[in-house]
Every structure is written in C-alpha cells, then in structure tokens.
C-alpha cells in the first residue's frame, strides 16, 4: 500500500508489526506479493479496506451491526485487540498478567491472602481480583466453605467446547487435603472437532504464588481434575470516551449513543493497559 512509509528512514529490518502491534502477513505468494492482512488472532484484518475477512466470532452479542466492520468504523476511539468481542475478559487477563509480572522473589502464595499485584494472594484471590478488574462484582461471596466453590456459584458454567481465554477454570481433587483450585484461562488449544486439548492459565499456586501454566487435558494432577470452565463477564463494555478510573475495580459506565450496548471493543485509552496482553 502506498502512502506514508514506515521504511522512510531506510535502516533496520522491515517491521512486520503494524497498527495495534499486529503482525502483517505479507509476501505469501511465490511472486513476492501478498494479502498484507494483519493477524489479530481470532481473524485477519484487511487494513486497505478497513474490514475483516470473516465475521466476528462474537457477533451474536451485537448482531445488529455488520460483522465485518472494524470497531464499528470508529478506530480513533476503539481498539479490538484480538479480533473478537473480549473487552471484559481482556481486562481480567491483563490484571492476572500483572500479578505474574509484579511477583516478588520467593513464595507469594498465602491461603486467605487477597492482595493486589506484588502482594501475597491465593488462587481464588487472584481470580476474584481479575474478575473485578473486568468490571464484575467479586465472585467470592456466598455460604460455601471454599472461595473456589463461591466463584463457581456466582458464575456460569460453559461447555468445554465453548471455553475461551478469560474464562475461570476450576479443579476438584479427591481425597484428603484442600480439594479445590482455580485459575484464569489465558489461552485455549482445541482440536479440529473443537475439543479442548490444552489450555494456559494464570494461577496462584502453593509455595510459589502467581504463575502461568499450561495444562494438558487428562494429564497430570491438574489435567485430570478439571471441574469446568466458567463465564463471568456480563456487562456492556465501557463507552469509548469514558476514561477508565485509576482504580481497576471501577465499574464500567453503561454504553450509550451509537455503540451497541454489547460491543466488545476496547476504548483506545485502555490500549496502554493492555499492551502486554498475549494474543492467541
């Protein structure tokens, strides 16, 4: 595409990471040409026409708008980090990643600790703080004997085939000892039939604290004891011109004006918060 060139200075390697830091797929064909689409994870974006190549996988949440348009044709205000409706879940993942990034040396796990990133936290504490960062009420409330069970009670179990990044995963263990564990899913790998093969989660585990882990279904203590995946995100996303509060627990304002209430896109001013987000 002609126009302002990122290569004007003529030094260094060609930068494949373009708008929003997405990798440009180019030179796929033998003659050196290519589609020059940007890889957003869930789908490819054609920047030359400002459209996606396929429909939004989350289109059922805003079916009243064309599924091919990028962020309701408002790229100045809105960002779609993954090519799919994911703002609340993306904010939760960003919070969970903050726990891993800010973890201090030594054990940062403590049963009953509900600290913020950089402080001690237990498994349900990390998940609950991530969920509240996504704009929902702390799910660890209720009459259960375990925070993990409270979280299960206050969220919605989804079919394994529908599990996605940003869901909560829980584990139940048999025998003596502490029977429950939880984490926030950051990525899911499925086979051609849509069955989960493995997933990556951020958890706070005993003796360590916050860390990221890949669990293969059916393998190991965790892989053999997955109880289920839980959806917690329910609210409309923040309105594009609403400045997020410094306190990550602030509730997002209700969407309004021309943005459909179920929009999953992220306001541009949230982008700096989410730049560390891992794209799957």
């Amino acid at each position: 595409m002609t126009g302002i060139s990122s290569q004007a200075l003529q030094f260094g390697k060609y930068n494949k990471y373009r708008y929003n830091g997405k990798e440009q797929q180019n030179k796929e064909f033998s003659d050196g040409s290519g589609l020059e689409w940007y890889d957003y994870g869930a789908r490819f974006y054609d920047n030359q026409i400002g459209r996606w190549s396929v429909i939004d996988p989350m289109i059922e949440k805003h079916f009243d708008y064309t599924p091919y348009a990028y962020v309701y044709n408002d790229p100045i205000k809105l960002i779609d980090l993954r090519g799919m409706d994911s703002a609340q879940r993306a904010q939760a993942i960003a919070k969970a990643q903050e726990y891993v990034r800010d973890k201090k040396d030594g054990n940062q796990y403590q049963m009953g600790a509900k600290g913020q990133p950089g402080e001690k936290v237990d498994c349900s504490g990390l998940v609950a703080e991530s969920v509240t960062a996504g704009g929902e009420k702390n799910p660890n409330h209720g009459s259960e004997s375990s925070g993990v069970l409270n979280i299960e009670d206050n969220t919605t179990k989804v079919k394994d085939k529908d599990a996605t990044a940003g869901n909560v995963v829980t584990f139940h263990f048999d025998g003596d000892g502490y029977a429950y564990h939880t984490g926030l899913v950051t990525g899911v790998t499925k086979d051609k039939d849509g069955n989960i093969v493995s997933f990556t989660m951020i958890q706070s585990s005993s003796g360590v604290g916050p860390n990221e882990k890949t669990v293969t279904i059916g393998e190991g203590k965790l892989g053999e004891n997955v109880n289920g995946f839980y959806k917690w995100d329910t609210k409309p996303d923040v309105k594009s011109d609403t400045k997020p509060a410094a306190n990550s627990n602030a509730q997002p304002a209700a969407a309004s004006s021309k943005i459909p209430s179920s929009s999953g896109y992220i306001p541009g001013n949230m982008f700096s918060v989410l730049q560390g987000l891992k794209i799957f």
Partner: protein
Amino acid sequence: MKITKSLTLLFLFFACNNISPKDTTINSGINKADSGSEKASNNDPSSELLDYLKSYKNKVSFDTTIELTGNKLRLQVVHYCTFDSAIKVPEKYVDIYKINNFTTHDFNSSIKLFKNDTLTLDTIIRKNDFDKCLPGNLRSYGVLLFPNIRVDSGFLNVDYSISIPLTDVGIGVTLALKGSRYEAICR
C-alpha cells in the same frame, strides 16, 4: 491440644493446588515461578495451619518514610493478634484440617502517620472499620490479615485481606490514609 493432635492427621494436606510433575510450566517471559518451590510446598502439607498459628505471636511491623507530593510522610504500622478468642469458626470451614470448634482471635493494626515529622494520625484499625465491605460470614468469622503498604493516586494505602482463617473465603480491602483521616475502601 486438639489442634496439636490434628496435625498428625494432616499428612495428605494439599494447599490450594496440587501440582504433578507431569504438568508443564511454561515460561512466557513474565513467569517468575520456581517449580522447585512448588514441589517443596507439597512436602510440607501442614504448613498453612502451622503458619497461621505462628502468626499469633509474630507482630508485623512497618516503619517507612516516603516523599509524596512534596511532603515527607512517615508511616508506622504494627499488626498484631489480640488474643481475644472472639472468633469461633464453624466446622465446615476447617473440617479439612480435622479440627472441631476452631476458636481464633481478631487482629488489629496500630497506625501512626507523620507528615513532615508532625503526628497527623494515630489510630487502631479493626475489622469493624470495613463493615460496609463485609458479607455476613466475613463479619462473623473473618479476620483482618496481611497488611501491605502501597502508594496509589497520591495517597499512602494499607491493603488488607479479611478472610476466614485457614480458608480462601475472603476479600481484599484497602485503607486510604488521607492526612488526619482515613477511608475504608472495598475492593
């Protein structure tokens, strides 16, 4: 005495996760986890209970001075067990530890804040200061735990967990120190 006896029965206690050597820990570049520590924690199954009982006699103290918005702020926090035997945790929360009728104590914090060497706040912080944040079970059985000092939005804050002892049932709360007054913030 019951507690001591029960410790011998805790040989299969696993804290909030069970890690098998088959599980793969990935290194995403931000992961600072030490798999060796994970393994070690499983070899010490009663550590949660022992740590909690030890905390009765271990005062947590902070004495820190920072420069914030042109002022020198000195914060002294002493977090301690009151030994009041005021909290009787129902069996359902602690049956995993083979404990019946677990009675424990409130914890309080003594907080002193100096602004440019002048004492501006001298108070005792109790769980009740956060009543507005607490559901019924935490009002009855929750304990003020794990103070952490943090600077946020130009204020000195003290983060706490209010949790039912020996469980992961609890919430995080924050005490924002604003000169001569303080504010309880629910998280």
